[in-house]
């Protein structure tokens, strides 16, 4: 059996298409207790900001049917400590590294990109634009084609070199293909689909929202059909753009579904909270499924659900 499980994201090759999802694996320092980080296609690190961040007050989490809400608030050490401590460690693990960045202003994204341009050993940059834009009444960058484009353009101008830019989009928009077009025109080499959806849980005992910030991002299998739809729509609109698909993938079948819709790689997020070995299990199951369905390579299966429309 010489099934080729490798995938390609904007010129960077990965030995298999299963990645972690940003914010669902930290920098890998806990998961390495359960498996070798180099066994995954890539580790996507938790979105890092310019300065240290305390994150939000608790409660930050509420479990929901087949999912969860979170409002962590991007707690983290800031880019300088991250580059000093986490990146060398990840390199030592032999992991392929995708650094996820997040900013509150367009200039934040520019500065983060400049700090990353000289860092060796990175496979790609994920630009998380699902953050409130402090210069635009707190409106999320990813929810408007212009602000989404501005953030990506700032990274494009400052990153230099060959490092692929993956723009991570929010599904909380009227037409995700319009946002996708906009960020690709601004220089994104690839898209990450989808981020969490905004949700709320009200505690019927306290009669108040359960999370301290009232709203939170919904993730888990509950959102998977939305991920499949978003990936399918964007693949139809942009036939060649590499897509890193995510959203409620809990097993190999789920990953396969996103691949058929158009994902060139799959990130595993919330499933890791329930099972630290989830990404490895999903990787093995996906490979078996591709082989069982007669594909000679992973790449053959990508976007396969579109075949009748293209003929």
């Amino acid at each position, binding site marked *: 059996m010489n099934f080729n499980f490798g995938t390609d994201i904007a010129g960077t090759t990965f030995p298999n298409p299963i990645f972690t999802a940003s914010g669902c694996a930290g920098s890998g320092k806990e998961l390495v207790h359960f498996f070798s980080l180099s066994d995954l296609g890539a580790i996507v690190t938790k979105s890092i900001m310019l300065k240290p961040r*305390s994150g939000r007050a608790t409660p930050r989490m509420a479990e929901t049917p087949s999912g969860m809400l*979170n409002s962590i608030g991007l707690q983290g050490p800031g880019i300088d400590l991250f580059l000093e401590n986490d990146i060398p460690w990840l390199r030592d693990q032999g992991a392929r590294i995708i650094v996820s960045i997040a900013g509150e202003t367009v200039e934040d994204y520019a500065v983060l990109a400049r700090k990353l341009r000289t860092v060796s050993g990175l496979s790609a940059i994920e630009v998380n634009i699902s953050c409130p834009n402090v210069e635009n009444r707190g409106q999320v960058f990813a929810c408007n084609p212009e602000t989404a484009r501005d953030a990506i353009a700032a990274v494009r101008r400052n990153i230099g070199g060959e490092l692929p830019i993956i723009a991570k989009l929010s599904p909380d928009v009227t037409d995700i293909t319009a946002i996708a077009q906009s960020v690709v025109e601004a220089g994104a080499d690839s898209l990450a689909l989808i981020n969490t959806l905004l949700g709320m849980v009200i505690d019927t005992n306290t009669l108040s929202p359960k999370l301290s910030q009232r709203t939170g991002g919904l993730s888990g299998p509950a959102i998977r059909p939305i991920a499949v739809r978003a990936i399918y729509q964007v693949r139809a609109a942009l036939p060649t753009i590499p897509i890193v698909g995510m959203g409620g993938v809990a097993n190999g079948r789920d990953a396969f579904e996103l691949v058929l819709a158009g994902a060139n790689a799959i990130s595993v997020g919330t499933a890791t909270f329930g099972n630290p070995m989830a990404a490895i299990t999903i990787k093995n199951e996906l490979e078996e499924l591709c082989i069982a369905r007669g594909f000679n390579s992973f790449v053959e299966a990508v976007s396969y659900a579109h075949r009748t429309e293209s003929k």
Partner: protein
Amino acid sequence: MINSKAVQMDAEIISNKRIGTYNHMVFSVDEMANGCRPGNFVAIAVGGPASSMVLRRAFAIYRASMRADGTGLLELVVAPLGNGSKWLASQVAGQKVNLIAPLGTAFGIPTQPVNALLVGGGYGSAPLFALAETLKSRGCRVDMVLGASTAGKIYAPLEGKRSVNSLTITTDDGSAGTTGRVSDVLPALIQEHEIDLIYSCGPMAMLEAITAITQQVGIVHQCSVEEAMACGIGVCMTCVLPVEGDDGVIRMTRTCVDGPVMNGNKVLWSKSRDIPDGVWGK
């Protein structure tokens, strides 16, 4: 960092007995039991393979032991309150559950014999009995206070009581022991038994009330906190509390890897539902 002894395994349920409002559950866990210390917890997947409950449930380890035949036992006290713990409590002997243990920090054991007071709220008493045995074996005097809203919610098995010098019960409704809260009886007990060190486990409000007393009289307070967790292994950043570090910096600290046992005197309790001023990165 994650507990270096942590392993993930499918563990068979050996027994499941209803005791008052709780379930005492025993799992077969092989040599993993050797790595468990009082204060550590276990994270269990609930609901079966098609479950809509995507997150593990965390339980303090009641006791862990190795049998002569080399099998290890892990014992839990489960309060079937939510859907996850109700599912677990409904499982019968012979079934298997997926668990990860031991997780988190353990209670620190003094090198010299001291007078220790163990304080438990509700099923928070669970990890204290194994701790009491360890302290007794090191020559400590061990007194215990258990509190709950009502008598049925006091968890104090007979074998547990044997390892303590005295046991004081408090209930909010007066249905057992002294009417009131555990913090009401602490000052007198600290004085009477010349307490050097308090260990506690229970609801956050109780831990905060105990800390107010230990800070006033200047004694060490090791508490096991209960903050809602999503992953239990340090990845998700859900279960944080503001805690002052050894360097004097207050950080939002993960209670799953830097806890659940923490120095209560270093937790900013009154601000635990807020990001206090001065927290790193605020």
